[in-house]
């Protein structure tokens, strides 16, 4: 996979190369492993200090999983674009004629893979720390929810990360831009996870409709990102 340099710089080929590159950067630098995952875990522990009751924790566990995910997304998006703007790599990619849509999809895929790892860890933390539990059927719903939600988060994160990339003061601006946009993901993913965990006796079947919201969000922002990313970078 890694040795095939695209003769015609196709979008898919570019996306694969960019995604592989981002994941290789992560494998060698281990920023996700050594910094972001421990950060997310400590957030989960802090929630327990703040809420201070097993019963409450069990009830709000799904929301906390996704809140911790959102906080981590902010850090991960910053990281994802710090890699690109550090040496002006993004500008060079563009002046080399690499299609912007390919860059967008590639970075989005790499972010999505990393987010899946993060969510898996956070669900594990909820099981251990907050007494969350789920059946096989709940597990299927959980995996589907996580896939759709991380796809949407990765799309929005890459889009807004690209918007703020290279600008002064982007670290403080990104949360302000990103958090209002991902509110639908927080709502949809939390409700779906509640039914997967059976929180408050909510049935698993009640979780599936929320998936629709997550899928609509993911599709809309993936398309918007693929279209808008080029104009955003070509300045």
């Amino acid at each position, binding site marked *: 996979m890694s040795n095939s340099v695209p003769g015609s710089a196709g979008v898919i080929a570019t996306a694969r190369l960019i995604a592989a590159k981002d994941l290789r950067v992560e494998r060698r630098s281990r920023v996700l492993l050594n910094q972001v995952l421990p950060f997310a875990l400590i957030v989960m522990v802090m929630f327990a200090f703040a809420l201070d009751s097993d019963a409450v924790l069990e009830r709000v566990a799904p929301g906390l999983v996704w809140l911790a995910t959102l906080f981590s997304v902010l850090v991960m998006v910053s990281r994802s674009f710090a890699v690109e703007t550090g040496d002006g790599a993004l500008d060079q990619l563009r002046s080399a004629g690499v299609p912007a849509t390919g860059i967008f999809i590639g970075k989005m895929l790499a972010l999505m893979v990393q987010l899946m790892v993060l969510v898996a860890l956070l669900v594990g933390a909820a099981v251990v720390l907050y007494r969350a539990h789920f059946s096989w059927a709940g597990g299927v719903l959980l995996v589907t929810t996580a896939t759709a939600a991380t796809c949407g988060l990765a799309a929005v994160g890459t*889009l807004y990360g690209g*918007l*703020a990339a290279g*600008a*002064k*003061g*982007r670290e403080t*601006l990104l949360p*302000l*831009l990103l958090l*209002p*946009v991902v*509110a*639908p993901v927080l*709502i*949809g993913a939390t*409700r779906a996870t509640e039914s997967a965990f059976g929180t408050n006796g909510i049935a698993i079947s009640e979780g599936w409709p*929320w998936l629709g*919201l997550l899928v*609509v*969000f993911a599709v*809309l*922002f993936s398309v*918007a990102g693929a279209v*808008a990313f080029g*104009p*955003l970078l070509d*300045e």
Partner: protein
Amino acid sequence: MSKHSPRDRVTGTPFTRGLGVVILAGITLLIILAIFVSPADVNQGESVRIMYAHVPGAWLAYLAFVVTGISSVAYLWKRTRSLTWDRIAGASAEVGVLFMGISLVTGSLWGRITWGTYWTWDARLTTTAFLFVTYIGYLAVRGLGGTHQQRARRSAVLALLAVLEIPLVHFSVQLWNTLHQEASVAGRGTDVEMDGLMLFTLFLGVVVFTLMYVWLVLHRQRSLALDDMLDDSGLDNALTARRAEAQGVAR
């Protein structure tokens, strides 16, 4: 600096001056009607008077964001591309944030008196709050720096993304609400039977606020143009100064 005539450095024109006078008269009339002349409501009592600022404020805020969206499209569309559209978008968003702030504050005060609470998680209210925050972010992006074209392109794309975001937020809050909210607040749609004078005062409020919006956007747009001009001339001045220095050294 001397390159521009004094006319370039003022934001007022005979039209805006005339408009300003009309607005001042309108506001005076609105205050008299809203506070002293129009009757108190049967159910809401005196607190109904907040409505005369709240409803026009909310209407103007939404209008302002629509104008921002349309101007952004006009900027992005190659045939109509002009920095004037970008400045109108920016000026309109600023005024919109101001009016939305007024509308949120007056609304929550009214809510405290009438519903007994400053805030409810009603979909319309929550979406408005999101819109408010989104456009504060939009204004922050406008302040990021770079060339005027960079700013214009970036903020125009962001404004269009907001058009995508807001309906999604509204829809999802509505879904969330139907499950978690026992009873939604009795909508303002219930007081359809409005006194004629109240209706007229409200109508006058909307007209006066709209004129005020036009006045503010015109001035703000022109002062933004002056800002850009200052930016450009600052660079020009620096260039001439450096050239003069270089010539001084050469001599």
